[in-house]
C-alpha cells in the first residue's frame, strides 16, 4: 500500500442473504483513496454507494477481501474495536443531519469528544473552534428545533470535524437542502479539504455537488465505471 493512500480496498466482496437467496452487492471491488482527496461517489439507486460508505466507515464488514486504513487492516476488527477506530479516525455527515434533538448545538458538537480523554475545558474550546469554523458560534445554545436545515448540517459538520478525524464520510450531505444552502455546505466541505487537508468521501446523487470534489467515481451494479475521471477542482459557474 502506497504511503499516499489513506484507504485501500482489495478484492472486496459483499453479499447479503435474503431468505434462501444470496444478493451480491460487490464482487472483487478494488479501490484506493489518497490522503487529501475529496472523492465523490455517484451512481444510481442500488448501485452499492451506501454499502461502500458503510464499509469505509467501519459500520459494516466485507464478506471477503481486505479493507486497509492508514496501512492497517480494519476488516478483521471486532465491533468494539471498530467503534474505537471510528471515534479516532472518522467524521460522519448524514443527509438528515442526525443531531440529538434534546441537546443544543454545542452539546451535539461535543458528543464525539466524550469518547476522548479531553478535559471539560478542552472539550469546550474545541467545540467553540468547530462552531466558529462553520459560522455558528452565536448559535451554540440553540436547540436543533430552532435551526434551519443549512444550520443543522453545519452543526453536523462541526460535530464531524471536532475530534479532528482523518476522513470525513458524507452520505448525501445536501440531499435535504435547497440549492443555495447546498452550495454553502459544499463550499464548506471544499474548504475543509483544501485548507485543513481533510480527506473526504461523499456519496451523492447530485452532479452539481460532485463538481466540488477532486475526483468522482461512478458505481453501477457494484462496479466502478469511468474510474478516476478528470478532476474538477473548481465549482462550475
Amino acid at each position, binding site marked *: 500500500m502506497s504511503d499516499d493512500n489513506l484507504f485501500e480496498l482489495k478484492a472486496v466482496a459483499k453479499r447479503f442473504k435474503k431468505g434462501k437467496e444470496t444478493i451480491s452487492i460487490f464482487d472483487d471491488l478494488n479501490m484506493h483513496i489518497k490522503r487529501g482527496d475529496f472523492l465523490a461517489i455517484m451512481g444510481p439507486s442500488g448501485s452499492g454507494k451506501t454499502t461502500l460508505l*458503510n464499509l469505509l*466507515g467501519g*459500520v*459494516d464488514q466485507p464478506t471477503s477481501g481486505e479493507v486497509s486504513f492508514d496501512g492497517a487492516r480494519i476488516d478483521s476488527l471486532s*465491533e*468494539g474495536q471498530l*467503534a*474505537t*477506530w*471510528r*471515534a*479516532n479516525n472518522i467524521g*460522519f455527515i*448524514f443527509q438528515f443531519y*442526525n443531531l*440529538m*434533538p*434534546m*441537546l443544543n448545538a454545542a*452539546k451535539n458538537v*461535543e*458528543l*464525539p469528544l*466524550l*469518547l476522548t480523554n479531553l478535559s*471539560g475545558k478542552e*472539550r469546550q474550546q474545541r467545540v467553540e473552534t468547530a462552531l466558529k469554523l462553520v459560522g455558528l458560534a452565536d448559535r451554540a445554545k440553540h436547540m436543533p428545533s430552532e435551526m434551519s436545515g443549512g444550520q443543522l448540517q453545519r452543526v453536523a459538520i462541526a*460535530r464531524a470535524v471536532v475530534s479532528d478525524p482523518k476522513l470525513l464520510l458524507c452520505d448525501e450531505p445536501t440531499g435535504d437542502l435547497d440549492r443555495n444552502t447546498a452550495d454553502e455546505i459544499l463550499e464548506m466541505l471544499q474548504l475543509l479539504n483544501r485548507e485543513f487537508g481533510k480527506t473526504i468521501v461523499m456519496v451523492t446523487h447530485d452532479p452539481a455537488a460532485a463538481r466540488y470534489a477532486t475526483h468522482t467515481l461512478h458505481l453501477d451494479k457494484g462496479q466502478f465505471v469511468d474510474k478516476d475521471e478528470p478532476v474538477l477542482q473548481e465549482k462550475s459557474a
Partner: protein
Amino acid sequence: MKDLYLVYKNLTRKKLRLFLTSFAIFIAFLIFGAVTALQGALNSGVEMSADNRLVVFNKINFTQSLPYAYVNKVSGIDGVKDVTFANWFGGYYQEPANQVVTMAVDPDTYFDVYEELQVDTQQKANWLQNQAGVMVGERLATVNNWKIGDRIPISSNIFSNKDGGQTWDLVVEGIFTGKDPQVDTGYMVFHYKYFMETQSWGGDYVGWIVLTTDDPAINEQVAKAIDENFANSQAETDTSTEKAFNKAFIEQIGNIGLIIFGVVFMAFFTILVLVGNTMVLAIRERTSEIAVLKTLGFSSPRIFRMILTESCLLAFLGGLLGLGAAYLAVGALSKMMARFLPNLVLGEDIILQALGYMLLLGLITGIAPAYRALRLNIITAFARG
C-alpha cells in the same frame, strides 16, 4: 458533558411522559412504604418477642383468668427462669374514647421478664414504694404529655372501685423506654396488689402468667410441663411462646401478611408492566439516535449502561418521592393512631428494602430495551429510518 448528562437529557425530553411514569412509581412506593410500615406495626409484637419468653393463659381463652396460686407453681417447674403475671385493666383517660392500655402487674418481677424495657433505678424504686404509682411507657407519656409526678385519673370500663366509682387516681412515678424503637412503650403498668385491694370484685386471680426459660431450646418442654401440671384442674392452661401467641392474635384479624403481599404485588406488577412498556417505547423511538451514537464510536456496552442508568434513575426518581411521601404519611398517621398502632414507623429496614426494589425495578424495566440497543445493528437501524 458526561454520559450522565445525556441520560438526564433523554430522561427529561418528554416531560409529560416522565411525570406520568414517575407518578405511577411514586404511587407504588407510597403504597409499599405505608402498607409495609403498617405490617411492621402489626407484627412488632411478634418481632420484638423474646425467644425464651412464654405466656400462660387459661385454656378456655385468654380473657379468662388463672388462680394466683399458679404463679408459684409455675416458678417451681424445671427450666423456668423468671416469672411475672399481669391483669388486664381496660383503662381510659378522661373519656372512654381515649383508651389507654393499662395492666396491673407484679412490680417486683415485671421488668425482669421484659428485659427490652429500660427503667431508671430511682424511678423504679419510687414506684415500688408508692402503691398508687404507675410506670408509663415513653410513647404513651409523650402522646398524653404526662410527666413524672403527674396525678392521672384512669378509669376502667371493666372494673369498679370499692368506693363505687370506676376511676383510680394514679401517680406517674416513672417513664420506661424501649431498648429498640420498635419496642412497644404505648402502655402503662401499675401495682397488681393495689388493684386487687381497691377493686370491688376482689378475688385471687391473675389474667395471665409470663415467664422466661433458661434456654429457648427448652421452650416446648417447659410449656408442656406447665400444661401437664394443670391438666384436669379447675383452670387448665395453654402455654405457648409469646411470639406464637402474638402471631396467632394478629392472625385473628385475617392473614395480614397475605393481604399486604397481594396489595404490594399488584402495585409492583402494574408498575413493572407500565414502566417496562414506557421504556421499550422510549428506546424504540430513539433507534436512529442510538445508531448515530454507535456510528460516532460509542460502544454498545456503553449505550447499554446508559439505558439501564436511565431506567434506574426513573425508578429512583418516582420511588424516592413515593417513599418520602410514605414517610411523611406514616409519621402523621403514627401521631394520630399512637394509641392503636404504637409502633407505626417507616424504619430503616423498610427504606433499605424499598431502595432494593427501586434498583430491581430499574434493572428489570431497563434490561429489555438496553439489550435491544446493545444488539442494534447500525445499518438496519438507519434503513428503518
